[in-house]
């Protein structure tokens, strides 16, 4: 990667879920404290020179404008700079990316990233089901299309083209719920069987309720610094190796294809190039399983298997714990939860634990390189960040 090497020296989060007990500000403070506690040698908070706050739908759900002050106020960070980032479901990842770039550019030495989303202070049917102008459609405006509608059409097309079945998508839900059962930060900490997933009520055929990630409250935080300063905070940092961000049209009738997300392929290629790796070097990945079909298509788009063979790679155990490249060891969006602005930051928390060998029962053996993948809209914005346990040359 161009610029100065960047290290992650702390990462923490609150338990995701329906956090009726916590306000947005409570969650921000909780994640920030968890992150401070994760710094092995401790950190003087005055060392944090700037911060990035990822919150996606704050202005829609809270009916108020979210600014950097939403972080600066609760942790008494002012007058230091806070940039608020919003980029659909890539919000958290994009906050991490921009903070890392600021360090790599030599502008700041030590920076903070917080991702937070308060989605359950309104009824769940009022949040994403009744979307307002999020997924534009000329005849449904301003209400727009729903996410299950849009991803359901990709599932139908993939089933038709490659013989993928609902059963394969259910296997992904089963896997991620099992991983979530091992993660204390996870919203759902219980197993579900393939049969339960297939028997669940249909939301948007071919997607059933248990193919969908939950509406979630949560927050996560990461501290990054110049790699040559990392030893002041820990003897065991991880490193930010590269990042790719790509775009594609939002609305259904402007998509070029319905069996892959071209922006994922472009973003991954850019991130791999920047990190100096190939897909084969990736040991584990936290990917955007907003719906089970999204994860299956993403195996193919990230280059973990050939186009159209996602179901075969899955059945061979590739993404399972103990498999070739365990995917979503945290439980993913599906089980850990998807508080939009926090999701990408929380993926770094999982890699922080995995690449340091601290993930307990869900530890991936010899994990050295991991990636985070987020998708905003319907493959509209895709962001891939790559992390490693060894300092880049």
């Amino acid at each position, binding site marked *: 990667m161009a610029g100065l090497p960047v290290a992650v020296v702390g990462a923490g989060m609150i338990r995701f879920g329906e956090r009726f007990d916590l306000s947005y500000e409570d969650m921000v403070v909780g994640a920030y404290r968890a992150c401070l506690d994760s710094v092995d040698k401790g950190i003087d908070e005055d060392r944090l020179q700037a911060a990035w706050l990822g919150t996606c739908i704050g202005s829609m759900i809270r009916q108020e404008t979210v600014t950097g002050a939403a972080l600066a106020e609760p942790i008494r960070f002012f007058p230091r700079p806070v940039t608020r980032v919003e980029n659909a479901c890539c919000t958290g990842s994009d906050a991490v990316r921009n903070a890392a770039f600021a360090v790599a550019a030599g502008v700041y030495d030590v920076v903070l990233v917080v991702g937070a989303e308060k989605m359950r202070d309104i009824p769940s049917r009022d949040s994403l089901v009744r979307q307002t102008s999020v997924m534009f459609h*000329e005849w449904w405006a*301003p*209400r727009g299309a729903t996410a299950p509608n849009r991803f*359901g059409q990709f599932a139908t097309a993939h089933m038709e083209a490659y013989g993928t079945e609902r059963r394969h998508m259910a296997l992904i839900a089963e896997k991620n719920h099992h991983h979530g059962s091992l993660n204390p930060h996870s919203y759902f900490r219980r197993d579900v069987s393939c049969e339960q997933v297939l028997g669940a009520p249909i939301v948007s*055929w071919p*997607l059933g309720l248990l193919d969908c990630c939950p509406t979630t409250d949560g927050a996560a935080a990461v501290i990054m610094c110049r790699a040559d300063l990392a030893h002041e905070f820990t003897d065991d940092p991880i490193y930010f190796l590269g990042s790719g961000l790509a775009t594609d049209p939002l*609305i259904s009738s402007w*998509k070029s294809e*319905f069996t892959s997300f071209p922006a994922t392929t472009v973003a991954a290629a850019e991130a791999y190039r920047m990190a100096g790796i190939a897909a084969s070097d990736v040991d584990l990945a936290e990917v955007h399983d907003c719906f089970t079909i999204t994860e299956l298509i993403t195996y193919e788009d990230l280059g973990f298997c050939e186009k159209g063979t996602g179901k075969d790679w899955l059945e061979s155990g590739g993404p399972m714990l103990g498999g070739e490249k365990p995917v979503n060891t945290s439980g993913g969006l599906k089980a850990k939860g998807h508080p939009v602005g926090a999701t990408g930051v929380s993926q770094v928390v999982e890699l922080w634990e995995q690449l340091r060998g601290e993930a307990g029962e869900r530890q991936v053996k010899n994990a050295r390189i991991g990636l985070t993948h987020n998708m905003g809209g319907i493959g509209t914005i895709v962001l891939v960040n790559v992390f490693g346990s060894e300092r880049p040359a």
Partner: protein
Amino acid sequence: MNRIAGYASYLPRPVLTREAAREAWPRLAMPGNSRTVPGLDEDALTMAAQAGLDALSAAGVAGASLSAVFVATSSSPYVVKSGAAIVADYVGAGRHANVTDFGAGAHGGLVALLSALRDTALAERGPILVVGADAVFGPANDPSDLGFGAGACAFVVGADGFVSLERFDYGYSSYSYTWQPVGETHLHRYDDERFERTAGYTSQMAASLRDFLEGATPDWYALSLTPGVRADALGVPADRLVGAELAAEAGDSGCANVLLTLAAALERASASETIVVQGYGSGAGTASALLAVESAWSPAVAAAPRERVELSYVQYAKHRGLIPLSSLPSFGAAYGASPGWERGKHASVGLHAGRCRACGSLNFPPRVYCLDCRGQEFEDVALPRQASVLTFNLQYVVGIAPEEAPLPICTALVDGERPGRYGGKVAALVTDVLDVSQISIGTPVQLVPRRADVEDGLVNYGWKFRPRAGSANGQEAG
């Protein structure tokens, strides 16, 4: 029995005077001099909360120590949802407080007070807060409206206090002179005042008082009073009747009425004097109590002097909701009247598309840069209405249309267009589908004009697909 340990009255600042009422209704006589009206940001529960907080201060009792909060009102903003619980929130009652609502009859304030005075088991756990509060209105063009009022009165009852309950009685009657149907905001009235005098307030109050006192003569009479009522009609000595002046200034404030009168009596009573309290509720009957003042009343805080703001009748009408107040538009409503709709309707309703002169890609809605080649020169063309399904889903959780689920939604390739490009497609709901298994990839469909949605009464007109006979290349079957 328990004792009264403190009390406080609350009357809202706004009043409608006889003169202001006469400007609007020259032929309707206000029975008193003025009536009270809740402020624009007040209701029975905020008035109850203010009286309750003041009574707790006067008694030196902390809200957290309360064992119960009893609130009597017939003008709660809710049919289902406890008003007493909201008052309990305001005064900071503990989680185990008995929170109970009284009302339905205007004697409800006294019924609640008697329940508190008699419940010694409850008082062992802590003091009880009792509040009567109401904002009462009649039909705007009826003289009864000018005699009603608004206010609240609160009592703190506990094992210790300065006023005790000697005895009590009740007398029920289902006879109704006034009533308020569910969903309405004012009382109705049976328009025969002479029958009301025979069967209602005057006769029931006088008979219940006679039966209750059995010849005894209390020092003070604290009764539910309507403006202009005469002491002799109730069989009461005029110099011992309190509250007549209050009724003439404030009006009949429903469940607050008899408690406000009792508070006025306690201001005048000396140690060892007795007070008879009697409340009346139309359609309910009477409640009677004989109270003994054991010691002089010394409140912890002095009551603030009452402020008055005289309303014009137009202002009164706004307070009552007869004239709507200004309001902001709801978020995102009526998209069909918005600039976005106006800019886009040529394409979205008129079905105009752009055909790229460089690469031939069909861009719908029309664009500035071609989706496929970034070309900037387009031919304005009518969007062909025939297409075939490229992919689809069946929406079971529906947020986008009035139709019943499952609702097919598809992205379709316009007939004659090439797949695998960005352009050449249309996405829409599929309508007129009786059996969703009719829909599959490749199904021929045709755009038909249909309603998309209704917001604030304004219809969003758009297009939906319906299945058609024939093939994807546009050749009709048969």
